[in-house]
């Protein structure tokens, strides 16, 4: 089957790619655009390793077809650090040692960022339920949850100060 031409915005930049109709957005990002930060842990929407944000909504890119990205804004882990500066969540993940193997990390960061954009002051339970779609087999989640809480606190402080 012939490939379709898809025009999108990826991490703020206009981007075009070709994709067969059955290709997932995850495969297009990884194989066509070389953005391998999103990972395939399951391919069935159960692990969150492939998390990206499409038009402001957190999605599993393994469950979305690449042609559906036409005309949409896609944000991936590769766009999270701005101008050589890590996002506070990235910084806090490092400080709290919230990763071991790091395979789940891009997905957690993308998901956590989406949470803090909706709710700048989540409590522990809200964080745990929001992140329940992301599997981590290494950390037991403890340090991930702490890192998100700490990043949220810091971002609130920065917002108040500005």
């Amino acid at each position, binding site marked *: 089957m012939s490939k379709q031409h898809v025009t999108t915005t990826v991490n703020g930049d206009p981007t075009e790619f070709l994709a*067969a109709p059955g290709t997932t957005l995850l495969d297009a990002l*990884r*194989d066509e655009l070389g*953005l*391998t*930060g*999103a*990972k*395939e*842990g*399951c*391919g*069935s929407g*159960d*692990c969150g*390793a492939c998390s990206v944000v499409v038009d402001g909504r957190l999605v599993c890119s393994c469950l979305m077809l690449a042609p559906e990205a036409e005309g949409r804004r896609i944000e*991936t*882990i*590769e766009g*999270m*650090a701005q101008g050589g500066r*890590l996002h506070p969540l*990235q910084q806090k*993940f*490092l*400080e*709290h*040692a919230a*990763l*071991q*193997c*790091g*395979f*789940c*990390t*891009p997905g957690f*960061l993308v998901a956590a960022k989406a949470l803090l954009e909706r709710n700048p002051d989540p409590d*522990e*339970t809200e*964080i*745990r*339920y929001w*992140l*329940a*779609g*992301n*599997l*981590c*087999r*290494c*950390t*037991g*989640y*403890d*340090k*991930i*949850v*702490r890192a998100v809480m700490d990043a949220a606190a810091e971002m609130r402080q920065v917002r108040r100060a500005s």
Partner: protein
Amino acid sequence: MTDVMDRPALRVVGERPIRPDGVDKVTGRAQFGADFNLPGMLVGKIKRSPHAHAKIVSIDTRKAKALAGVKAVVTAADFPDLASEEVEAGEAAGNLRDLSMNCMARDKALYEGHAVAAVAATSAAVADEALALIEVVYEVLPHVIDVEAAMAPDAPVLHEGLFTKGVEPKPTAPSNIAAVNKLGRGDLAEGFAQADVIVEARYTTKAVHQGYIEPHACIAQYGQDGQCLVWCSSQGQFMVRTYCAKILDLEAADIRVIPSEIGGGFGGKTTVYLEPLAIALSRQSGFPVKMVMTRDEVFRATGPTSGAVVEVKLGAKRDGTITAADVVLKYQAGAFPGSPVGAGSMTALACYDIANAAITGYDVVTNSPKVAAYRAPGAPISAFGMESAVDELARKLGMDPIAIREKNGVVSGVKAVYGPTLRDIAYKDTLEAIKSHPHYSIPLGPNQGRGLAAGFWFNIGGESTAAVRINDDGSAVVATGNPDIGGSRASMAMMAAEVLGLPIDQVRPVVADTASIGFSMLTGGSRVTFATGMAVVEAAKKVVEDLKQRAAQMWEVPADKVAWENGAAVCLDPEKPAAKPLSIAAIAARAGRTGGPITAEVGLNAQGAGPGFAVHLCDVEIDPETGHVTVLRYTAAQDVGKAIHPSYVEGQIQGGVAQGVGWALNEEYIFDAEGRMENPGFLDYRVPVASDLPMIDAILVETAPNPRHPFGAKGVGEVPIVPPLAAVANAVRDALGLRLTDLPLSPPRIRAALDARAK
């Protein structure tokens, strides 16, 4: 060995610096197994048996080969038919023939998902089409998966040539019982005769998967000159090289394995599945071949750990002294011999000083995937039985669960039931850490319960190589041969920085490929910070000696007139009062004139890994309506020797606990009547998610540093998965007032137990 420890104060070790590979991993830049591509690369895929047990009558690959875009098709006929030979690859020892036949079935498919053929094609779609065109004729055989059913005399036999090892007289008929091993001491009958109280029960566990989030992935490129490159995600690049060389009958020197980042392993990546097939496909096609498993394939074809039956009988005096222990362990090995029942046997009673004990272990082949190592292989299963039994015993005696463990617990100098004399252990301090933690006395509410359990793991040392190189600006590189599975780059860099006297950010750790560093056993057995860390320290010390030597040349003084302090050479020669300390940078700048590059590589075989003990405390609440168990609180104390990077040690503990809680409450392989796995995805094979767990309080007990490690480190990665099964089960027992002995304690099981009681 302890000279470095005698330093007045450690600057780096014991601190919590940001890991050197951290930014790569939070920005998506780190390259894992599936993140590489090569020009002209083909896609490799595997055809798998749909039957749990079947004779392979014929395989016809002609149609597949004829399909446009198909570049290679391999079956067992493309691999040498190897003789049975045991290979030592550290903790992942195995039999070569079995390993080869597990990668590609020969004559018989032994489990659903067993590979029978593989193809390489120009696209995934073509590869899928080719798989469908391969015609395999099977003769389906009766199968057996349950461990006790497999042991029965009339069970379908997996291997006609398998005769039980370890029994006299030698059996004359083949059996699924690959081996029986026994250990123990004293006189069991006498021990039970001394007992005032006896408890006896049978416990069962289901096969569970390591559940690493990254599926297996590799690329192989076999050149026309016979030189072969493999990029893969594994726990040991040297293990991959050895196994591929043996399975394909190649020279190790012709294979170079480049380790990618590894997205979790927990023991499950201590063997090969894809790599030999990818090499064979690349050799046949002349193109690089990339293979990536789906999650379905990971569940169906890669290592779970054993499902098991554990029978425990304990006798004790009224004062709590355990006088006798009789333990029987029956472990599924999957399709080939090699369950972790040996380690399960040795660890079963390792926390206890018991005079009369017997442990019998059965290694049983079954029509399920060949088991692979899973974090402290075998130990969580036997500990589940033993620690549950000790809990029952304490209840019968009216004793506190810590008191009974204090009464019978091992201390330094005690000879363990499995043989060696334990030294420099802090088991009692670990119990004490839990006893004095506020968690131990928090009042419980209705439907809530508290459980405690202990665990032991040997930890290993073994062969490792490390190189330390000084750059021309005075910074350093530390190269090792161990994949960094949970932050070990940080500890390698920290130990080197400590010895050299450099700030941590001036030491860059790298994980080198098999052609770029000497041999190292794989990352497993909680050995890297201990053994490879030792090689790093030795290499760094050699570099310091060299730096002192260079400084002596620069000052024109004898070498013994130079000391090393805070990362600089200091001149002790009274005749050179004006000699200012020389920093590494100053010495490195003159390296060309003082003997050339400053570098040292050390290979060693580290002995004396200190064993680890863990004591866990768990609170649960049971919803009587749904049978759902919520873990309310969890505290885990561990004898760690000395934590090099405490955050990553805590992380190991928390991660092990989470896996153990999953094992206890939800995870299990479920097979249908045909022996096909019914839940090969994360939706139905439920690993714990963030909302299933509380914070996990990790207590690092550092009262018994390991004198055989320069900084006192013991392995820390495995023992944290040993106690949770029983800690959770004991908490559920406490909450329900009823002992459930079959894992997982999933909601239907709990409901059924509550219903049965109501009747």
